[in-house]
């Protein structure tokens, strides 16, 4: 078999100072002097089994820490509203609606006894409905629950996710459809709720459903040889292109892609980094995030301690930046720029175009271990 990765050696970013990007992106890059007035929010942890939702400013200064009853995961942002949704990571039981400015609890969501939350939630564009991925563990199937924010966050519906182990979900740009990463892994709370029980038979997929009816619109899976690639996280551009990050459940030395691009209606296109980077990704992707322009996307690899950057137009690998235990990613308002957080307490501003990493100057954020995902809230 011809070694497949050779075709991807198209960058000078590995060990070099500057990434070769299309000139259109390079020109679009804005100077770094503009102040980012955004607030960043994420689940976090202290050193004693204490968990929070924490917010920090663009300098890294902590704004508040809201204690959680258990480890959180991602945060859903309600458009044009103070609400944010913090859902417990799998196998989760609690969901809290918090005030984005203070962290105060505004409402509580209770998971049904025969379901478990899976850590991710997203609001409809109008902010009325909240959608949460859940595990129907007795049936070994994924579901998406629907909660009416205008009716005290009442659970009003439940849709099939059309797969097992649904994880991250996003609203598609039309506002009418949800894309769901069905990771394929079956877990059961009686067996700790996290240990995969079906690796040999797992069937991950990406599914798009109608957010009002739950009807399946599109679905795509990787070829069977790659069925152990758990499709776990994703992000969507304004034009509906989806980037997904995988977590491999097979051998360390297996040569498998860890990133995929999906245009709904087509196949998932797997893409790879050059070997020296691909090996350092350690078969595991964390967060996926497009930049503000939609031209670059970043994928964190916490096991390898690096963030990889990709060209959204050509789907080529661009460069990588080391980020020890880094996982959380949020796009700033600058092309090719992201803020990243780590479990070691670090937060960086990372520029994929200049291949530059700058630590946020306020050290107060270093008192926490930052969890898998990060969101940017416009102010």
């Amino acid at each position: 078999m011809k070694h497949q990765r050779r075709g991807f050696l198209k960058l000078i970013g590995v060990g070099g100072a500057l990434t070769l990007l299309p000139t259109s992106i390079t020109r679009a890059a804005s100077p770094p002097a503009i102040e980012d007035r955004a607030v960043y929010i994420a689940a976090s942890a202290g050193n004693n089994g204490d968990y929070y939702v924490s917010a920090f400013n663009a300098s890294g200064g902590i704004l508040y820490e809201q204690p959680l009853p258990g480890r959180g995961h991602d945060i859903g942002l309600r458009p044009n509203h103070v609400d944010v949704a913090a859902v417990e990571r799998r196998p989760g039981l609690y969901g809290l609606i918090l005030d984005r400015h203070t962290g105060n609890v505004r409402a509580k969501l209770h998971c049904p006894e025969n379901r478990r939350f899976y850590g991710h939630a997203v609001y409809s564009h109008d902010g009325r409905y909240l959608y949460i991925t859940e595990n129907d563990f007795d049936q070994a199937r994924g579901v998406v629950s629907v909660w009416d924010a205008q009716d005290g966050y009442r659970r009003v519906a439940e849709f099939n996710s059309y797969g097992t182990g649904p994880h991250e979900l996003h609203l598609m740009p039309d506002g009418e459809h949800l894309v769901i990463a069905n990771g394929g892994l079956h877990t059961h709370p009686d067996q700790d709720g996290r240990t995969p029980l079906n690796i040999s038979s797992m069937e991950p997929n990406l599914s798009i459903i109608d957010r009002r009816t739950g009807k399946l619109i599109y679905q795509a899976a990787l070829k069977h040889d790659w069925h152990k690639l758990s499709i776990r996280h994703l992000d969507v551009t304004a034009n509906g292109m989806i980037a997904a990050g995988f977590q491999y459940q097979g051998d360390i030395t297996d040569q498998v892609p860890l990133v995929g691009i999906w245009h709904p209606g087509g196949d998932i296109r797997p893409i790879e980094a050059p070997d020296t980077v691909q090996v350092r990704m350690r078969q595991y992707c964390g967060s996926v995030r497009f930049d503000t322009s939609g031209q670059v996307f970043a994928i964190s690899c916490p096991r390898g301690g690096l963030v990889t950057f990709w060209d959204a137009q050509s789907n080529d690998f661009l460069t990588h930046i080391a980020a020890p235990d880094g996982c959380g990613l949020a796009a700033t308002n600058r092309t090719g720029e992201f803020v990243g957080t780590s479990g070691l307490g670090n937060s960086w501003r990372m520029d994929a175009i200049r291949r530059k990493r700058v630590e946020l100057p306020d050290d107060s954020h270093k008192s926490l271990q930052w969890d898998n995902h990060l969101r940017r809230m416009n102010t």
Partner: protein
Amino acid sequence: MFSKSSWRSILLSTAALLTLGITSQSAHADIPDENYQTILSHLLTSVVPPKLDAFHTATNDLAETMDDFCSDPDQSELKDAQTAFHEAMDIWQELQPWRMGPMVANGRDQHIEYWPDKHGTAARQFRKLMFDKPAAYTDPEKLAGASAALQGFPALEEVLFDDKHAEQMVAANEDGIFLCQYGAAIAINLGTLSGELQADWPEFAKAMRNAGPESMDYPTAKFAATDLYRALHEGLLIISSQKLARPLGDNAQGARASRAESELSERSLRNIEHNLIGLFAIYDGKWGDVGQEGTGLAALIDSSLLDRSFRLNWKTVSDAVADLPPSVSELYAQPDGYAALAGIKEQIDFLTTLVENDVGGNTQLGGGFNALDGD
């Protein structure tokens, strides 16, 4: 070979150490970054390069021996070529676990040894090769652009150690002449690959050595040293989950020696013996006659008792492997062969646990909030 009860007693002795309070250093002060820097510098610039030199020399010797064999093919020359293969493979198996930088760049490790071959790609392609006998495969430069499955050690193993192929080469018939020229091209290609590895290593070592805030690859020496720890940890995992688990199968009835690495050349367990030598160099800092004892990751462990315990455990396991016959098929031919191999896997898994708990904890290289427990 030592008994299961004896290595379990060693496990108990480690548990006793932990009870005495010789536990992870992670609760202690951070290890200064310069301590990691010293280890990186020693391992990457003093210890590894001589081994890369030795590998390059061994592959060049292999190429010369293959050339001699093809010029005058007889049983004696074949034996010399097989011996040269084993000598080059011994060094490769020590280097193989160092899966970083130039070792993996451009798929180099896979070009040197394409294994495991889960889909039987090599056998399928080899059959086609022997049917077509394309001249390009006897040209080392053209071979370098061919399938990884047809250009490294496993392909040369098929040429040199398959009885039918050996007979054809000694007989110098049409198939034999092609096989010999193809084998010679593989050996030259291995020399080229080992030369590239040797040439590329210093720049990689420099990048690791120069870790610092300005580096986008290695912001701290500790972060760079994590790659060494990972190589040690993953090396053991690979031995267990691939080199041992594959021939073991799910049970004795499902065991297949043919699923082991290098089984045709009857050296699958010899490979593991050499893997353990290369892996222990990461911990110890001494690799054969190169380096000094206690200058690898061991230098970060501030408990001499724990260090001694780890060394003793490692030696016990590596001695047990060395006492086995060189191949799984030979071991399986013994009455308790399957149990013996399963026992070795248990011991390797035990070493993995020690690396995770003792080495990972005390060197502060094994942690990570998101890395260890992500979602």
